């Protein structure tokens, strides 16, 4: 009875096009933002910040990138982790080689580098589609990681092979506590998520969805496939690149290619399948799910089986549950958690009436 639309008339198109048209929605989102930025950094434990919140935000960002490319533009890509790697290494190298490079500028430029690489590896999408394109993106994944690994220049010829990420300094202020890193990551991810939402509901988003749904008809309307697809690759890779930089600098603390392997690419794909393809919210939900599941399983096993469970059995079970859940979601709710959330909201609008 609180979540009502009746009686709320929109008198302009601008009102209709808002992201959160219902008054209650606006209040809730406002409260969420206050909570996220002001309260959480002060009350959350180190564990929560470092092991849960920061990686969740970073992976939500990658999932957004993946969703833009695969969910909205329909280009199946298995190479997101590769673009993350480009971002991470680009950031490291910008900070290393350019004196006085501001951190945020380095992150932005890393995104641009990843976007450029994304455009190059997106070129095949102009001639190939579907399954074939997915395999072509595998090429980008393997090739990028190989290049970053083999050519010592990227690692500044460091003999140990593991580079430590530089500290994050913005306008003289050092971001090194978990809470500080969290706020930084949250701010960046928040801004980019808003940008993504704006793009998706504008002409660019429609151009992606048109090409995804029926590219011949899209062309007939006047969408040129090349700019549309390449822009999707570019923007998606930008997001992945920024996420990669944040992953290395605000989470891992090291910059290494092996972290960005094919396994991670698969996980990112799973995030959008489970969270909901073509959904901004779904990217966040899916990332949370994929991150939390291993922890949940681990806790479950230890409570039920005590210490009789060894690590390999646990990881094996994790694999099985992951895979089974993917299949389950695809069969039962192909639009993922985001759709479940939408259905819940719709039921809330009617509550307490049944229909």
């Amino acid at each position, binding site marked *: 009875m609180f979540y009502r639309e009746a009686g709320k008339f929109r008198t302009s198109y601008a009102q209709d096009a808002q992201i959160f048209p219902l008054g209650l929605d606006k209040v809730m989102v406002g409260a969420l933002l206050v909570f996220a930025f002001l309260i959480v950094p002060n009350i959350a434990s180190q564990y929560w910040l470092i092991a849960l919140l920061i990686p969740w935000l970073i992976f939500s960002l990658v999932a957004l990138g993946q969703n833009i490319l695969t969910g909205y533009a329909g280009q199946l890509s298995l190479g997101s982790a590769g673009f993350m790697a480009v971002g991470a290494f680009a950031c490291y190298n910008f900070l290393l080689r350019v004196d006085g490079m501001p951190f945020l500028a380095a992150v932005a430029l890393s995104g641009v580098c990843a976007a450029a690489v994304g455009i190059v590896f997106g070129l095949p999408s102009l001639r190939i589609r579907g399954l074939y394109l997915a395999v072509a993106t595998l090429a980008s994944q393997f090739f990028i990681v190989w290049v970053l690994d083999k050519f010592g220049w990227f690692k500044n010829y460091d003999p140990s092979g593991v580079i430590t990420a530089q500290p994050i300094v913005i306008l003289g202020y050092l971001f090194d506590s978990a809470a500080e890193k969290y706020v930084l990551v949250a701010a960046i991810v928040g801004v980019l998520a808003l940008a993504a939402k704006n793009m998706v509901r504008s*002409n660019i988003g*429609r151009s992606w*969805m048109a090409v995804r749904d029926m590219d*011949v008809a899209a062309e007939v309307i006047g969408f040129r496939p090349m700019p549309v697809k390449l822009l999707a690759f570019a923007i998606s890779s930008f997001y992945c690149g920024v996420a990669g930089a944040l992953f290395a600098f605000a989470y891992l603390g090291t910059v290494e290619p092996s972290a960005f392997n094919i396994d991670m690419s698969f996980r990112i794909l799973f995030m959008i399948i489970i969270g909901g393809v073509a959904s901004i919210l779904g990217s966040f939900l899916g990332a949370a799910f994929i991150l939390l599941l291993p922890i949940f399983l681990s806790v479950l096993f230890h409570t039920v089986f005590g210490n009789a469970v060894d690590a390999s059995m646990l990881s094996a079970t994790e694999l099985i549950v992951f895979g089974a859940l993917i299949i389950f979601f695809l069969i039962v709710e192909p639009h993922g958690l985001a759709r479940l959330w939408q259905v819940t909201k719709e039921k809330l609008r009617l509550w307490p009436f049944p229909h």
Partner: protein
Amino acid sequence: MNERKIGGVILSVQNISLAFGGVKALTDISFDVREHEVRAIIGPNGAGKSSMLNVINGVYRAQQGQITYRGQVRKDMDTHQAAEQGIARTFQNIALFKGMTVLDNVMTGRNLKMKSNFLMQALWWGPAQREEMEQRRKAEEIIDFLEIQRIRKTPVSRLPYGLQKRVELARALAAEPKVLLLDEPMAGMNVEEKQDMCRFILSVNEQFGTTIVLIEHDMGVVMDISDRVVVLDYGKKIGDGTPDEVRNNQEVIDAYLGIAH
């Protein structure tokens, strides 16, 4: 009858031949279309009508012949060039974007009128936002015109066939085309839906002056609303003239009755 002024030739196809591998879809077709008229293309199934439309707007490339559009002679056109030049179309099997709502589909038709780039859209900044609202207003005019306001937020995949066809027409109209190619716009509709569709097509022609080229099987409709008719059979042109002239053409009658000739 209406008192539109039918203008000069806006589109003409000359000696178009199209083949797929060994199959000859079109052989040496020539006809013209005058501005502001309603031109029907008719013929038995498999005559090559859809292929003809596809050649006009660039979906297929003809092996021979040329197209003259608005004074420019060209061998062929890219589909998006055709769109930029003011040609819009609907498809026989409905080519709506299934993942989007009615409103979004119609908005895609406004694509060519949009000028802001992705950065401005990402920021939802002044000019981008104003442009989006302006285009929304234009799209809503079309939605009003075709009386589909109630379903504007419905995903198109959930609509019944007849309404989907109407939405596809809306999307084509949203581009404010000079020439509208309609591929069997009334296929699969009942009598009432057909009457509505006829009404809309005629309104488009009268109010906006849009030149209409349509493929249609319902002879009643064709005779009623067309100014001139082209008849195709087995990829060849066997008739060209006013509905009355064509109706009395023996070759056309034979083709429809299946008499070999």
